[in-house]
């Protein structure tokens, strides 16, 4: 297959390149760090919109590292990156719309018999 340029030199018998794993462990510690920060906020901050916003931002950071580095999307072509990201961005709108709708339904049901 044409896309496997790395294979040409690897076919030489008994010659295996040295592992290059520094970036993997760096990404791992970033993910562990962000998760630890999330737990700090769970236990030392009162629940509320601000805390939830912090959680969502930290989650998006974690998603960025998993998709960008582990799934290699950061290093793919621009076309592929946008093909994946644009539909996901539309889902954010769905989430915002339906969460708002949920609050509204709750309010209507609570005040129905008042």
């Amino acid at each position, binding site marked *: *297959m*044409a*896309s*496997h340029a*790395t*294979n040409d030199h*690897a*076919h030489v018998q008994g010659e*295996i*390149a040295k*592992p*290059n*794993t520094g970036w*993997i*462990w760096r*990404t*791992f510690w970033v*993910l*562990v760090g962000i*998760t630890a920060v*999330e*737990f700090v906020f*769970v*236990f030392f901050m009162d*629940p509320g919109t601000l805390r*939830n916003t912090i*959680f*969502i931002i*930290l*989650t998006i950071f*974690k*998603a960025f590292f*998993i*998709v960008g580095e*582990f*799934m290699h999307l950061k290093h*793919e*072509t621009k*076309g*592929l990156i946008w*093909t*994946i990201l644009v*539909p*996901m961005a539309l*889902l954010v709108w*769905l*989430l915002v719309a*339906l*969460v*708002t*709708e*949920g*609050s509204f*339904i*709750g309010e209507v*049901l*609570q005040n129905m018999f008042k």
Partner: protein
Amino acid sequence: MANTASTQPISATPTLDAPRTGTWDGGNEPFKASYGKLMMWFFLLSDAFTFAAFLTTYGLIRHKHGVFAGPGKFHFSTDWWPVPDQVFNAFPGLHGHELPLAFVALMTMILIFSSVTMVLAVEAGHRMDKADVQKWLLWTILFGSTFLASQAWEWTHFIHGTEKGLLMADGTVFHGANLAMNQYGPVLFADLFFFITGFHGTHVFSGVCLLIWCFIATTNGTFHKRGHYEMVEKIGLYWHFVDLVWVFVFTFFYLV
């Protein structure tokens, strides 16, 4: 020569002297990714829609229900949505201790770690290092299975409930949860727990099956003969996606 020239009409469009070589003119890979990898990406995109639908439903239903407004300490009731760290505060072997979110933190770490061993397997595949691919695939299978076992424990505890239970309107005490009743809050809370974590767990299970198959194929030398370990990469994409979904489930189900 003269004969052919007179019978053939002169073409209006000039013929190509050289094949077209533009990005979208065929004969190349515009996304510089193989067919298999591209299709895995599109499958994962469609799978992300399903999970997003689940989590959006959770958001809608949670906002439809009220929140505990006091007075006093939070307690379970079908009138309001439960606080997650009050529901998920048990740890295997430490009965009676309140350890909010400790077990789910462990599960998160196991899954993130399995993602790391998966990337290490992919990296070994790039170097055509069969022994390393085998080693890291085995670690990934181990962590994946451990996660599944942890989830089985979590479910068992959720289904059986606490000793205190919840006092129902008819005076009886109900312990644990099923699809129709639960001690933690509104019916839909347990339903969403079963469906969202269950659907994610099913994905982990499929991933472990794929990894076991991948390990056997690696051991048999299938990928080495093929000349590349792209299959490890494709299964890796799936595995990271499962980890990614857990990151979102973790935030929206356990933290928020």
